[in-house]
């Protein structure tokens, strides 16, 4: 059990935490730590900080600890926690907000999950669609997991479930513009 220095968290992070909680639409003080969110979390068994503990860290002002948790990357956004919370705390939204914030601060606790999402979006930006199998191939190459899912590839191509060339929409320009405008609006934070 690590020793946590509570006084170090304190007020210095409170403003920042309040801002993130309000983006997520979460009232942190509502949580009474019953743990129902964590009991039903499908990824809980692999998490370093359970959803309940993530909330507790923020209640205590320990923002960097929360932002560095691998949990916020493992969260599958399944919404089980938010659905079951007796106090209406939208933990799934909080996990998402924390992950976006961690990315902004370049705190990437799980490189492979990060890489997967980056490649996914790169494909969407280029083609307007997500070419599933090309995405998997790119991911395998770049993550070094060369043979992942190769057992399925032959059947995918044979049965017409995979295409050698990506499908592309006509108005790819519109999609690039959407990316540009959204990412621009993000920058000044």
């Amino acid at each position, binding site marked *: 059990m690590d020793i946590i220095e509570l006084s170090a968290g304190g007020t210095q992070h409170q403003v920042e935490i309040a801002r993130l909680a309000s*983006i997520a639409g979460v009232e942190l003080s509502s949580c009474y730590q019953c743990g129902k969110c964590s009991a039903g979390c*499908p*990824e809980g*068994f*692999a998490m370093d900080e359970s959803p309940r503990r993530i909330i507790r860290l923020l209640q205590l002002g320990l923002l960097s600890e929360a932002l560095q948790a691998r949990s916020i990357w*493992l969260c*599958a*956004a*399944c*919404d*089980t926690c*938010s*659905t079951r919370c007796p106090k209406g705390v*939208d933990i*799934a939204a909080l996990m*998402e907000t924390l*992950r*976006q914030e961690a*990315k902004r601060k370049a705190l990437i606790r*799980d490189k*492979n*999950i990060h*890489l*997967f*999402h*980056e490649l*996914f*979006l790169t494909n*969407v930006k280029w083609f*307007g*669609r*997500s*070419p*599933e*199998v090309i995405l*998997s191939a790119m*991911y395998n190459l770049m993550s070094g997991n060369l043979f*992942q*899912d190769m*057992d*399925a590839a032959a*059947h*995918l191509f044979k*049965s*017409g*479930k*995979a295409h050698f060339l990506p*499908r592309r*929409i006509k*108005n790819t320009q*519109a*999609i690039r*513009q*959407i*990316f540009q*405008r*959204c*990412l621009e*609006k*993000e920058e000044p934070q």
Partner: protein
Amino acid sequence: MKYAYYPGCSLDATGIEYDIANKLVARTLGIELVEIPDWNCCGATSAHTTNHLLALALPARNLAIAEAHGFEQVAVPCAACFARCKKTAAAVQASPDLQVQISEVIGMTYAAKSEILSYLDVIGKKTGLDHIKKHVVQPLTGLKIAAYYGCLLVRPVDITQSDDPENPMVMDRLLQVIGAEPIAWDYKTECCGASQVVPVPQLGKKLIHDILKNAASYGADAIATACPLCMLNLDMRQKQINAMFGTQFHIPVFHFTELMALSFGYSAQDFGLAKHFESAESLLERMIGGKGA
């Protein structure tokens, strides 16, 4: 009934047989599906883990195109796309400022006026079970099916308007109407991990394993899904699960519309049963004397 149809990327690829079955079922039931012209990817989980505005703008473009073509209802067969579209509509409805901002970003007006429905709800709630029953010529008698909903068709409930986020019944009732026997089981709405299984396979595969195990323990002959990602995980990865956990699962997995098409008298060649990874041949042989296979 006429719907704008947003197939989403999977239905053009790994979920291609879902698309085929959806269209067969629509034709039989007199539902008109019109594909949204030049639709783009909804951004899925990757967009909403990355950038809030992008996660809303990508679905908004498709919905705006549907609105511009005068559609009042949009049918979405993929659970992930459905969730993204619904969240976008809800966010824009709740905030006039956001409505302006999103419209600016996509360069089109998006008013969020059209109703967004999962294809499961189009069939199971909007179409009328009596009407469906009339078309059943080959009831799937004796087939025990675990109806699997996963996450995004049911949660969050204020977005999905699911009948019950812990024990939804809409697919179960459909299965009943086509003569099958939906079973009660525990993992109906558990998460399959969706695309998590690619970057963190150990984690994702455990989720898939647990779902298969629970269905098997309740004696399911097959699993029915209403999402191409759930389908891919449960069907394509069964072999990988067996290798990882030393199990012997061979549970055929169907899109719910494939089972409906079978009951309407279509044969497996009419849709894409051969495209599945886990063979359903012997099951269909037993059930409907091989007419389906």
